[in-house]
């Protein structure tokens, strides 16, 4: 078990222009975590706008657990199985999870599912303990488009800090999902 490093705050960014919806991330994650056959911890949504604009356009939006600073799943969990770690990761303690499933509808990002094989709630864990072994999360490692950037936002030298700085310097569009809900997500979207 990796103990949380208080000095760190993990986050992920998707450079959406680079995603091609190849779904390699979804399968890499499934392999890494032996996610049941028909479930996934991360998804790619396709948004197509043929009617709205003259020019056809299609966008791909990867999504998964947002590791929110004010995570509704943590609030509703009666056993504290869902908890926010000091390194920013929202984790589920399988020993404490009683399978009540309150967390699943509470997540505004639809990030959670019930793992029938384990009998617990499941979701993205930012690949703990891979990241403490010095590896990148499985989805980041495999992404052929290099659309996914991960790291410690407290470290200015981390790839994610650099990506966010670069986006700010170049005035790229940077956003998080459902900011209005005040969940303070830690997944950023970057678009040129």
């Amino acid at each position, binding site marked *: *078990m*990796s103990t949380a490093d208080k000095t760190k705050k993990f986050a992920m960014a998707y*450079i959406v*222009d*680079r995603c*091609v*919806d*190849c*779904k*390699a991330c*979804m*399968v*890499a994650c*499934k*392999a*890494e*975590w*032996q996610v*049941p*056959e*028909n*479930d*996934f911890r991360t998804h790619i949504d396709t948004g*197509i706008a*043929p*009617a709205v604009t003259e*020019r*056809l*356009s*299609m*966008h*791909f939006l990867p999504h998964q657990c947002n590791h929110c600073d004010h995570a509704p799943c943590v609030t509703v969990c009666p056993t504290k199985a869902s908890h926010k770690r000091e390194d920013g*990761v929202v*984790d*589920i*303690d*399988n*020993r404490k999870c009683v399978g009540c499933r309150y967390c699943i509808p509470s997540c505004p990002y639809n990030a959670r599912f019930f793992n*029938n*094989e*384990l*009998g*617990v709630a*499941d979701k993205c*864990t930012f690949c*703990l*303990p891979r990241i403490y072994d010095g590896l990148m999360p*499985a989805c980041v*490692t*495999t*992404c*052929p*488009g*290099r*659309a996914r950037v991960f790291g410690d936002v407290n470290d200015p030298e981390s790839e994610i800090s650099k990506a966010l700085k670069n986006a700010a310097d170049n005035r790229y569009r940077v956003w998080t999902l459902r900011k209005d809900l005040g969940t303070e997500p830690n997944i950023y979207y970057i678009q040129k």
Partner: protein
Amino acid sequence: MTKCRISRRRFIQGTASVGAALASMSSFRLLTGSSSAVAEPQQGVTYAQNWCEMCFWKCGLTAKVVNGKVRKLEGQPDCPSNFGKLCAKGNAGVFQLYDPDRLKTPLIRDGERGSGKFRKATWEEAITYVAQKTNELKEKYGPETFSLFCHGSGQDPFIQMMEIMGSPNICVPSYSQCTGSRDIGWALSFGKPVGGKEPVDSQNSKCIMLLGRNIAEALHVGEMQDFVEGVAKGAHVIYVDPRFTKTAAKANQYMMIKPGTDSALLLGMINYIIEKEIYSKDFVENYTYGFDQFKEHVAGYTVEWASEITEIPQEEIIKAAEKLCKAAPRCYVHPGRRLTRYGNDTQFTRIVACLNMLLGNWEVRGGLYRTIGFKYDAPAMIEYDKSHAERADGSGSEEFPLGPKNLGFSNGTIKAIAEQSSPLKGMFIYGCNPLHHHGNTDTVRKAIENTELIVTCEIYMTDTAWYSDVILPESTYLERTEPVITTGRRAGFVQYREKAVDPVFETLGSWDMVNRLLEAMGYENRFMDISEYNRLAFESLGVDEEYMKKNGVFIGNESSPYPVEDYEEEPSFRTPSGKAEFYSNLAEHFSYPPMPSYEENPVPAEGEFRLLFGRISFHTHARTQNNAWLLALHKSEVPLWIHTERAKALGIKDGMQVRLVKEGFKSNPCTARVVDYIHPQAVFLPYGFGHESKGLTRIVGKGARTSDFTSDLTDPISGAAGFHNGFVKIEIA
């Protein structure tokens, strides 16, 4: 779900080796605690180097093995095919390895062909059976009675076995079904074929034009990485396709073309570029042949004319032409892949090549780079005399002088078997599936009927295996140690494959299997031991095995892929004139039109659709559809794309079950995907579904098999297939 539970349990037993009591779900949870701590006992972890065999791009990968089970595959960071990345298919290799649907023992048919009745056999039995039958056939019909269809890393022993048996009828279907016309067209123009790893320098390109080359979905990691890099750096992407694909999503300019009219579009652009004199004059003057004739030849192909035929507005055509010329030479028009469309594809490639000539993008950054191979003295795995008999399909004959004798025409060979134009009675199949890859399943069925012995080497019970007499189950790539291979992209490199685990079932690698077959057939020739071969190869390659075991890939031969730019080398071409040829001397020599013209393709009748098919990013050919991890990505649905207006007229709503119909024959149900972004004249179906083999338990009977509906035309120059003149009706299931 239950199936997965079994594998999960196996995994638990593996990790919780302290006691059987821990092998239950609840104790697993107790043992592991937090989900983040699915702790793997590190003592049992090993790594093995390999290259991916989920498609044919051969991405370098490292398999992580935990307590004797492959847990995870990751790309080799340095491999020039994929630089550390794997696609969805590549990642799903783990599922394939442990898939209970795999062929587990040799099988011998024990009922009518196609009844699916087989009896399990030992290897000894199966080998003896095949050897005896083949010797009988050889006795009766002569050595040329055998044909082989093969594709994949294990194909070589089968090819060599055929040579030893004395038959020239060896087919590598990727020629006929995919790249043949393109490579011949390119060779006629530039003096060399494109090659399997298309040397388009997307990462440095300022303008990229793709005609149905759907890089994001017919996905090869390395090519896709370069493309995304180019896009990120601001390349202007022009995408032409009757369908708005995921590659179109990355384009600055998308042109919905009327299917089958790509030649007209390019000729219109060429005409404009020449008229406006915006081509690369220096390149055209110094390094090309036949420009003046070509100029005259294309004079009638005006933008106006092209616009009428393609249904693309004139200003769009002009814009594309100008964007390319402005970016030249840092731009390219993609030579295409799976260029088996309308049966006149060699001439289409010639048009693509001529447009590239006008851009002067030869062996410079952002254009067409030079593939750097890895040349070395490969040891001989086996000694044999090559068969010099005539091929039954006519490849390399007077009719098709440019058809390569070593690759053959798989469609031509199937036809020869079906028609028994020569007594072809024994068919070997390795990693191929003629019932899917041929243009017309009726011909394949006839060929099957006329064959006395069909031997299939496979990892799954494919449709073709289902109709075989003997099935030899092959070990997957993760269970095989094989001879090293060399590959070329911007550098030449060596790839190493070492089995990650022992075979999960009673399977063999093809080298081993064929060695036993040769022995049983009574031939003297034997393959060298693979480790001995590798030792000799490493000596000649200048690398040691330790290095390969650790890194999996060795990059040698690093010269510049942009010699024209970097060494100021004069562009050179292995054509009769020594120049890039607008006017092909070789074509003329063989009495083909030396310059490409527009040829009209047949159009669907009222109420019919042209059937287009292609790949989706998470399946390869007809071989991965049964993989549960990949199936989950599309919820096992097989979509049929149809235009909104046309669907409406037929009463078809999005999500409805529909069938393809041709001459009374109906497909299995597909799910209608009613969209505005496909040309109304066409429907699109992803390739590789509609399996009839009950051995593919998850996908049998789902979706349509394209080969039941496509055309099976033959390109007059290359001899390769043409699939897209198949016309279908659609009805509600």
